[in-house]
């Protein structure tokens, strides 16, 4: 089991550009969540996808959008990049199981985005 994988590992963009980050969930998982982790901060929840729809969203502008595919993999898109978007972007996957109070989220290694 490869666990959660993310690509690319590192990315450098300039202000105003657009970026797409990719995530493949752990085998058997159907839910993908995206987080932004700025240097020295804890991860901040961006949004969560389940059944190819955005189910929950954190306090992020519309420049941040996403998609989930039928195979449960997901993309995070960020438009009109700002310097402040520089961060580690983490993807986490989990499985919907009836009767559980918390479905453990397994994190990928992240994509380090630098905006110049």
């Amino acid at each position, binding site marked *: 089991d490869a666990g959660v994988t993310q690509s690319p590992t590192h990315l450098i963009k300039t202000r105003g550009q657009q970026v797409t980050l990719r995530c493949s969930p752990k085998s058997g998982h159907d839910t993908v969540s995206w987080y932004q982790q700025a240097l*020295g901060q804890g991860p901040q929840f961006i949004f969560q996808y389940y059944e190819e729809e955005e189910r929950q969203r954190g306090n992020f502008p519309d420049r941040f959008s996403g998609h989930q595919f039928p195979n449960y993999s997901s993309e995070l898109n960020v438009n009109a990049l700002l310097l402040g978007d520089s961060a580690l972007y983490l993807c986490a996957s989990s499985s*919907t199981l009836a009767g559980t*109070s918390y*479905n*453990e989220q397994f994190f990928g290694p992240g994509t380090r985005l630098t905006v110049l």
Partner: protein
Amino acid sequence: EDKVVQSPLSLVVHEGDTVTLNCSYEVTNFRSLLWYKQEKKAPTFLFMLTSSGIEKKSGRLSSILDKKELFSILNITATQTGDSAVYLCVGNYGGSQGNLIFGKGTKLSVKP
């Protein structure tokens, strides 16, 4: 506003020391308190706490939750250099898939 506050933000100890990491939270619709360890990139799950006063233990790590005082601690005994990491305290609220609100983390450095 929901928040999770960890202290200290950083800590330097020597191998063999015992450390206590603190976490206070204000989370509406609170479901559970989680601890994660982040060494390089991917946070890895340590504990989930839902009930007050029940200690969770895994090897040299243990954690307990106080739902009255909205507080949790993570203890690490006989620390090793491999314990060096950022420890994240996380509030879980909402539905079963869990909205997670993270603290800033405590950076633990264990010197040989």
